[in-house]
């Protein structure tokens, strides 16, 4: 009996423990927030919706994540440069071509800097662009379907980092190389880097109606590292600004050797002038090879085309189009304020932030106040272009965004903080710690003429103790600040996915009303679509078998198939006949060497299956679709390679 009591006491203790762990979240940590009403500022009640969208880069995940502000809730991961078994992106026959490059099929990348399309310098919410840093690519993602619609490879580039920023009418999405390389690539000694390697800055035209991408020209710059860039806007529209480091042109131990010069440059590029030059026949066509991949919404299918030529422009051909603005201490961030007047260069080895004046730059160019040149490109005298310096007291400034009320916000990596300062007076008005080692920050619309400046999101590189530990690696942490008042107010921590470098955001109204709900089945032009379940069939072409199958809650048509043989290549072409919002069906087949596919209402997707074993094998729906989801299944009979079993298929027979 005694032992019984002991056992029961133990159970009670255990129960109590469970209860405590079950109720976590209402504990001590949030009391402070509740008492000062901070919690209310991020609380979005069940059934209510966030005020803003935030699109965070996934870094080495290769994908883009969608969050709500101010709640910090993640809504979706959009596959861009990486295969994504959750939807079948990069695995389905229709989407494999999206990841084609001149290096072949590359199933991942390092996605850095999302940027939303603009009209007249204001966010228009049509598309979001993103760069693949590793195997240089630029992607265009639809903000109606939240699907990647186009990926263009960038030739002559390597470490596609000062990308993918757009001009104020989305005329161009710009991609600058971080690493300079031989152009064209060739077998040569690395030590001959200096004056032989080139840095390509690529201007990719965006067709206004459908957003299709086409490389207009590549500017072959001196062999520096081109780090970040931003467009001019307003009065400086027509210019583009790129920060550079390693103007020493070192090819080894850059950690030391690229920090020798006291100042590197911000390159100011008059792209309108170069555009006019190439429109009049200027530039040189260079043979090359790069992939251009386009997803067609009506056929639900991507095609990849290899392009063989690119138009290059050498800066010496077009004097007066490019200038260098000396900027201290290996500048990283290169940001332009909403008026287009100030170009901010954040010297990452410095305590101060350098602000250049567009007006002063133009005056210096007109007066030809130059301080020599680099490879023929005039260097404007520092004193003649600098508007001011922010004496921040922080260390390691990286990136700056704006609230549209005359304030700028700069992240400081080394001192882990966001510093708010005033444009024009350069005085620091507030500073708040971040947790920890902040990289980029994002104010929705904060790099446009009209920021939607209520919240600021700081994206940190190091998480440490912010969350329950999850082994040696923690998801990176972000913080939301309310910036509507004079002082920034830290509201909330939330975990992000992969490594968010930059992010883009906007008011929810700009996107939510255009968000697509279904694909219309009568507009489905997929060559293997079936418009009615009665058209379901199985067709053999040699050892290729094409299964035309439909789904609706909750069955497949057909669901019994015989006559498949070991060694066949079986293509399941699944058309989802649902026409209701948010009712996808999944398809998975035992031994499927690709991935499952998630088929949206009205869409057709194809999964390849190569049966290896004789038997009767099941398939099923992977997305819980109705009360009878567990009944949504079928069987395939696989016979030996030499069998004579005829193809047959049925439903309910």
């Amino acid at each position: 009996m005694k032992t019984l009591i002991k056992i029961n006491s133990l159970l009670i203790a255990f129960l109590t423990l469970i209860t405590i762990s079950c109720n976590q979240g209402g504990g001590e940590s949030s009391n402070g927030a509740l008492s000062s009403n901070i919690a209310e500022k991020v609380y979005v009640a069940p059934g209510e919706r966030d005020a803003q969208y935030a699109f965070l880069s996934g870094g080495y995940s290769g994908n883009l994540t969608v969050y709500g502000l101010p709640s910090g809730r993640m809504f979706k991961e959009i596959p861009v440069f990486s295969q994504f078994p959750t939807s079948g992106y990069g695995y389905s026959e229709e989407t494999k071509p999206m990841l084609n490059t001149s290096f072949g099929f590359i199933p991942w990348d390092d996605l850095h800097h999302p940027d939303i399309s603009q009209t007249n310098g204001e966010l228009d919410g049509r598309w979001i662009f993103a760069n693949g840093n590793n195997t240089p690519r630029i992607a265009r993602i639809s903000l109606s379907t939240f699907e990647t619609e186009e990926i263009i490879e960038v030739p002559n580039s390597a470490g596609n980092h000062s990308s993918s920023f757009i001009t104020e009418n989305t005329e161009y999405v710009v991609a600058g190389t971080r690493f300079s390389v031989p152009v064209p690539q060739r077998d040569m000694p690395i030590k001959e880097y200096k004056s032989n390697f080139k840095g390509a800055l690529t201007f990719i035209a965006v067709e206004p109606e459908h957003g299709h991408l086409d490389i207009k020209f590549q500017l072959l710059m001196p062999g520096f590292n081109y780090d970040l860039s931003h467009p001019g806007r307003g009065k400086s529209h027509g210019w583009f600004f790129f920060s550079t480091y390693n103007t020493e042109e070192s090819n080894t131990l850059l950690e030391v050797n690229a920090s020798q010069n006291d100042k590197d440059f911000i390159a100011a590029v008059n792209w309108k002038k170069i555009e006019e030059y190439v429109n009049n026949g200027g530039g040189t066509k260079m043979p090359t090879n790069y992939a251009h991949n386009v997803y067609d919404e009506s056929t639900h299918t991507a095609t990849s085309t290899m392009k063989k030529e690119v138009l290059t422009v050498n800066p010496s051909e077009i004097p007066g189009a490019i200038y260098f603005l000396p900027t201290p201490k290996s500048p990283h961030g290169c940001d332009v304020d909403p008026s287009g007047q100030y170009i901010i260069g954040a010297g990452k080895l410095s305590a101060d932030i350098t602000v250049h004046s567009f007006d002063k730059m133009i005056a210096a160019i007109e007066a030809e106040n130059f301080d020599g040149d680099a490879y023929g490109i005039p260097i404007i005298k520092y004193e003649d272009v600098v508007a001011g310096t922010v004496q921040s007291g922080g260390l390691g400034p990286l990136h700056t965004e704006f609230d549209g009320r005359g304030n700028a916000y700069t992240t400081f990596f080394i001192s882990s903080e966001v510093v708010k300062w005033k444009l024009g007076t350069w005085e620091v008005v507030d500073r708040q710690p971040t947790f920890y080692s902040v990289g980029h920050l994002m104010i929705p619309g904060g790099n446009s003429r009209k920021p939607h400046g209520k919240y600021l999101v700081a994206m940190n590189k190091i998480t440490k103790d912010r969350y329950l530990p999850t082994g040696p690696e923690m998801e990176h942490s972000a913080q939301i600040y309310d910036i509507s008042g004079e002082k920034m107010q830290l509201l909330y921590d939330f975990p992000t996915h992969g490594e968010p470098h930059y992010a883009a955001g906007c008011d929810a109204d700009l996107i939510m009303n255009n968000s697509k709900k279904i694909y219309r089945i009568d507009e489905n032009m997929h060559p293997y679509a079936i418009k009615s379940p009665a058209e379901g069939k199985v067709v053999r072409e040699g050892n290729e078998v094409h299964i035309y199958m439909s789904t609706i809650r909750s069955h497949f048509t057909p669901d019994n198939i015989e006559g498949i043989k070991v060694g066949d290549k079986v293509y399941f072409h699944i058309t989802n006949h649902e026409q209701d919002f948010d009712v996808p069906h999944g398809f998975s087949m035992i031994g499927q060497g690709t991935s499952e596919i998630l088929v949206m209402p009205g869409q057709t997707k194809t999964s390849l299956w190569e049966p290896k074993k004789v038997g009767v094998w099941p398939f099923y729906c992977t997305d819980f679709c109705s009360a009878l989801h567990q009944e949504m299944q079928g069987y395939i009979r696989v016979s030996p390679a030499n069998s004579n079993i005829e193809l047959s298929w049925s439903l309910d027979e």
Partner: protein
Amino acid sequence: MKNSIIKISIVFLVAFTLACGGGEKTKLPPAKHASESSTLASPEDAMKNWKENKGIGPVSSVTLTEVDQEMVDAGKIIFEEKCSACHKPDKKFIGPAPKGILERRTPEWVMNMILNPEEMTTKDAIAKQLLIEANGSPMANQNLTEDDARKVLEYFRTL
């Protein structure tokens, strides 16, 4: 004694853990809809009184005149594309057969069932009963326009 106490405790523990973990997310309609309809008539009464039931939805009045063959042809195409996965014209499949539907339902009810199935299957007494008869397999909203639904109804008149 000892065993039964431990057994009971384990059952309790498991139940507790499950409650704590939360259930699987399904796409069933939220629970509040079901409770809203608690005052409606019994299924038998509802079926008997079908002539008074126009359903719940955008359609309040339909006037049937001579069968319009053009509408029938268009309705047949729409039916095959969007409805035939679950409905066969003359026998019960996933859902009921539309053959002879106007001898059991009003034309307004038929169109509202097509156009507003979520609300119908949670609030309308007949539709609720049909959902049970279909083992809970939901009537999908196939996003037909009112004009589409009217054409499908015209097609049903010819079955």
